[in-house]
């Protein structure tokens, strides 16, 4: 590999979490503390429209409660998740800026969005496609819905609602999408393309999404599907420290790899993950022994879960504490890495993690050949 140089840590200074636990990191922490599953009953759709399998959904989500009634008529549920997550993540930003000795000179021009999604809103995309089939004329789609079908719709709306004129990127990498977003954010901040970025991932559990996954036949019958959005406000850790802004955590090494389709003879997701973990720890200046808590991503697909376990064992050489989120939150595909990170922060907030261990590891293994991991340092 080209580079094993140390990464510049990103400080997490804000978070917006929309999950089957409800809104906010506190709700997620509470859910993890009780060990209960998140909301399992759809409120936006008729439950009969879903396949017979467990679901984890954002409970009672009404966008107007958070943004008011104006200008939200054409926004889809996925974009709504992004807008509310953004609102939560930016809450307190003004106080933070005014409290410190100096913030970025132009917050709106220097703040951007990097969002993981592999499909955009499948509901919006498939509904528009359905309209071309069922309408009297094939072109009779709703022009105000058409922009919802582009996959950067959510990131675009987040920028519009918050006047964020900086970097605005959308990353599609399957289950690893959110980690790709973190890598993108680090490069952008390192090169001075943005001072602050909202980084994370989003997913919407619609009947179309649920049936599509269900029909692949790859999911364990008891594995719930999930949805939600987690966005983290990040900036260069040294800059945050210099400005006296409170850091909730630091994002250290983030490494990804591609190993081809399952039919490919190179396909060994366990070995690839081990390589990512070793590289990410080295670039974080850490040893395998430093890792206190692992939040594994692959739980809904048996072969991938086995591969992830093998990879972790190979890289860490022991079994650290595992924080599994599958039963609480379900498999939220493109949002999974971001929601795993949210779960790690919530776990730490609950006082979780082995004594004295301040390093967590988020791992992700996609059935499409993408694998990745993220090293996280607890603040304080």
């Amino acid at each position, binding site marked *: 590999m*080209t*580079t094993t140089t140390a990464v510049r840590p990103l400080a997490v200074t804000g978070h917006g979490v929309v999950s089957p636990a409800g809104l906010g990191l506190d709700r997620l922490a509470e859910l993890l503390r009780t060990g209960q599953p998140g909301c399992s009953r759809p409120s936006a759709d008729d439950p009969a429209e879903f396949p017979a399998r467990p679901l984890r959904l954002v409970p009672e989500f009404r966008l107007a409660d958070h943004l008011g009634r104006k200008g939200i008529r054409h926004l889809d549920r996925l974009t709504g998740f992004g807008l509310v997550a953004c609102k939560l993540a930016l809450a307190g930003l003004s106080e933070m800026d005014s409290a410190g000795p100096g913030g970025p000179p132009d917050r*709106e021009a220097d703040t*951007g969005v990097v969002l993981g999604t*592999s*499909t955009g809103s499948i509901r919006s995309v*498939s509904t*528009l*496609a*359905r309209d*071309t*089939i069922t309408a009297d*004329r*094939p*072109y009779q*789609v709703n*022009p105000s819905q*058409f*922009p919802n*079908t*582009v*996959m*950067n*719709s959510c*990131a*675009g*709306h987040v*920028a*519009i609602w918050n006047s964020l*004129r*900086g*970097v*605005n*990127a*959308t*990353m*599609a*990498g*399957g289950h690893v999408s959110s980690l790709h977003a973190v890598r993108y954010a680090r*490069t*952008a901040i*390192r*090169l*001075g393309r943005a001072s602050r970025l909202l980084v994370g991932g989003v997913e919407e559990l619609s*009947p*179309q999404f649920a*049936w*599509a996954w269900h*029909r*692949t*036949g790859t999911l364990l019958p008891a594995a719930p599907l999930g949805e939600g959005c987690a966005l983290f406000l990040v900036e260069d850790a040294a800059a945050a420290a210099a400005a006296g802004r409170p850091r909730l955590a630091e994002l250290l090494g983030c490494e*990804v790899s*591609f190993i*081809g*389709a399952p*039919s490919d003879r*190179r396909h060994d997701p366990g070995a*690839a993950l081990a390589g990512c973990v070793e590289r990410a720890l080295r670039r974080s200046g850490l040893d395998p022994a430093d890792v206190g808590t692992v939040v594994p991503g692959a739980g809904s697909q048996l072969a991938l879960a086995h591969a992830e376990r093998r990879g972790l064992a190979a890289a860490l050489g022991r079994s650290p504490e595992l924080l599994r989120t599958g039963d609480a939150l379900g498999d939220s595909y493109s949002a999974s890495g971001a929601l795993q990170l949210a779960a790690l922060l919530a776990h730490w907030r609950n006082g979780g993690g082995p004594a004295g261990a301040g390093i967590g590891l988020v791992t992700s293994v996609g059935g499409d*050949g*993408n694998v990745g991991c993220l090293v996280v340092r607890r603040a304080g």
Partner: protein
Amino acid sequence: MTDGLRRVAVTGLGAVSSIGIGADAFAASIRAGRTGTAPITSFDTTGFPYVIAGEVTGFDPEQLLDRLDPRHWGRSSLLAAAASRLAVTDAGIDPGSLPRAAAGTIMGTTGGEAVLAHQLSQQWVHSGLSQLDPRLVTQVPANQIANAVSAELGLTGDTVTVPTACSASNYALGYGYDLVRTGEADVMLVGGADSVNLQTHAGFFQLGALAEEVCRPFDAHRTGILTGEGGAALLLEPLDDAVARGARVYAEVLGYGMNCDAKHMVHPDSAGIADCIRQAHRRAGIDPAQVDYICAHGTGTPTNDATEVAAVRTVFGDRIPPISSIKSMIGHAMGAASAFGAIACCKALQDGFLPPTANVDKVDPDLGLDLDCVPGEGRPARLNVVQNHGFAFGGNNVVTILGRVG
């Protein structure tokens, strides 16, 4: 914070387009002002008032691809993989070295595998969601486009699709450049792919942005876009590596600007675009006066071209360089559009010509009487620095700057 950065060269080009397969065929058509738009054959246009698009005819994935089984991938993925395979061949790099290298791919797209999405929706409408074909389901996510490239070439590094609509492949070029520059990667295949599809055609028609027959950017009687498709790829590597292996260097990526209008999902914003151009110049370390040519976003809608030219005038003042739109020839290739633009720019630098705008009868006087949109055919010109525009729904602007390596 910018110490230790490497210079980045473009050494390979791959085009699978409606006006030619392979960068040479593509560039020859561009230079001649040849148009690749024609009546749509990929879907049933019954009921559509407008039926012209820029389709890639004669695309035979079997012939262009070594490893992928075309039955397992959607059309956009195959276009991206084929373009990338062509770019590797064009670069003269040993393809056997790529799986061992720090190599990856960033691919842009707008609609992803929209043709497959339509097939799945047909299954939903006619048979119900419980009858979705699982093979199509696994092929449809946008990440499959970059995955196809890495699977075809055996790449193990960053493999990401950037679905930022119509500027997506300029994002891909920018991100790939940053990864090579910072040493995260030694070789990156960057570009984009999209397929002509019914939903996109319907959507642009309903927005009133579709032309009936001809795309004529900058013309007084321009009426809109024609939808298009294709796969476009560029191979990026450190300039030092390229020189060391005696590679032909088409261009150096000098820098890029990127921002978001943050105003409207669909309408472009002149001030946002002007800021993006200025940022690109600053990052590339050039003055506006050094720019010899602008490959415009140039969709051919009345709004885009007026907004784009206004933004250019804001930055360039009295003297604006020649600015043309290759969308006049290939239509709007969506997520591949700005990568096709970048390929045209590389060939223009290498071969010494200004890419033209086809189909121009009368330049719109409202755009300014001095506007040189290179109407008709390409003109010989020695170019040193060129600028490539990509704008998108969501206000996602990226402007890339490419320069001749002296």
